[in-house]
């Protein structure tokens, strides 16, 4: 007797196509508006020397890959409202871009994942699987297109983002706190 509440995807319908499409949650301007509504953003990229990256890595206990750290000073009226940083981390299966919002004193105000990309895996190419969304609730706010895949799978640890945030806080201490 076949199960009715779940469907085994025929292997032929699932084309292994690495890397799988990324899930994009927020663009940088959207994340800025969400984390600091109504503020102005002055881009202030930090070019890190090899020595600085080594110091940051050591102090944070987490690798620093990028030579340029993307940073925005956040202004509200004529005062500083905080800092906005965009960073990326590489996990075991995934590649993650995220934004960190800091208050003017360097306290964390929020973290938002901007983009999540599985570095290997399959992509749904099964037309039947996608057809179920066609014609349902036109104009619905939840866009159920091919880009949206809800996955229940092995728990992915967010350790890499946690390490990344620690590194950004060290970067802030070393290079931004006294500006």
């Amino acid at each position, binding site marked *: 007797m076949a199960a009715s509440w779940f469907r085994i995807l025929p292997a032929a319908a699932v084309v292994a196509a690495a890397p799988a499409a990324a899930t994009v949650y927020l663009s940088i301007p959207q994340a800025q508006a969400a984390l600091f509504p109504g503020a102005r953003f002055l881009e202030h990229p930090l070019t890190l020397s090899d020595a600085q990256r080594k110091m940051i890595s050591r102090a944070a206990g987490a690798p620093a890959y990028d030579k340029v750290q993307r940073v925005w000073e956040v202004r509200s009226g004529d005062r500083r409202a905080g800092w906005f940083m965009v960073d990326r981390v590489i996990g075991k*299966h995934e590649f993650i871009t995220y934004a960190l919002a800091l208050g003017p004193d360097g306290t964390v105000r929020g973290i938002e994942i901007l983009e999540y990309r599985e570095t290997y*895996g399959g992509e749904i190419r099964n037309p039947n699987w996608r057809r179920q969304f066609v014609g349902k609730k036109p104009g619905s706010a939840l866009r159920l297109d091919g880009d949206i895949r*809800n996955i229940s799978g*092995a728990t992915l640890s967010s350790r890499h983002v946690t390490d990344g945030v620690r590194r950004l806080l060290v970067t802030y201490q070393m290079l931004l706190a006294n500006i």
Partner: protein
Amino acid sequence: MRRSRPLLGTYVEITADSSGIVEAGFAAVERIQALLSAHDPKSELSRINCLAHRQDVEVSAETFAVLERATHWWRSSGGVFDVVAAGERSLAEARIPRHSAQPRPAERDFRIVTLDGRKVQLAGPACLDLGGIAKGYAVDEAVRAMRRCGADRGLVNAGGDLYGFGAEPWSIVVVDPRTRRPVVDVLLHDEALATSACIDGSSAHLPAGADWLSVTVRAPNACDADALTKIVWAAPANVEELLRGAGAHAFGIRPDGRIEEVGRPALAA
């Protein structure tokens, strides 16, 4: 809209119609994290682990609800689901820290836990780890908060423990944990789905030597779905009865890739 934040040691993703609803969902998850995280020395769980062997520790309604459900699953599974045994293992394998005021666990069986009113007592030093049930509970709390905000549909996914609600069903794919390839899809409608897999060293709540690659449970709420994945994994003799009693169903992926519903004959892959 769809947002994701690093919470509960995983990525919590919330899909809903407005940012107010998404924020309400995340706020509920953050509250459960603050209460039940074994990593946070200030959480209620850490207070229990540090103090409850010496004095009663009074806890919030949420913490109490999770401990009551953990008691239910411990009792009904004949001890297979045990957050005290899991805590001892997690500590021994350094997956959770031992805080400065926290004693070394001398006990590894849930029978030392007493719940009375909103008070928790431990008969001896022990370490509870609610990682096998709290994520699911946090998902349920997020859904309750979103509904209180007027949400008529939404999806909350905490690293594989998820709940979807609304007029339209949500399509969920379950992946093979080795290849991350989608192998099954499920339509969810005011229900929870939880998957536990044996990869990435995150199998603290899963008994060793099991014969599944991953187990997926569908249940009326995510707290029970989460706990039941661990119970299905351990396969006590009454597993089918436990699933039925919770209004739940389960399937798993065998090491050879076959997909089997629990309590039914094998299905062709």
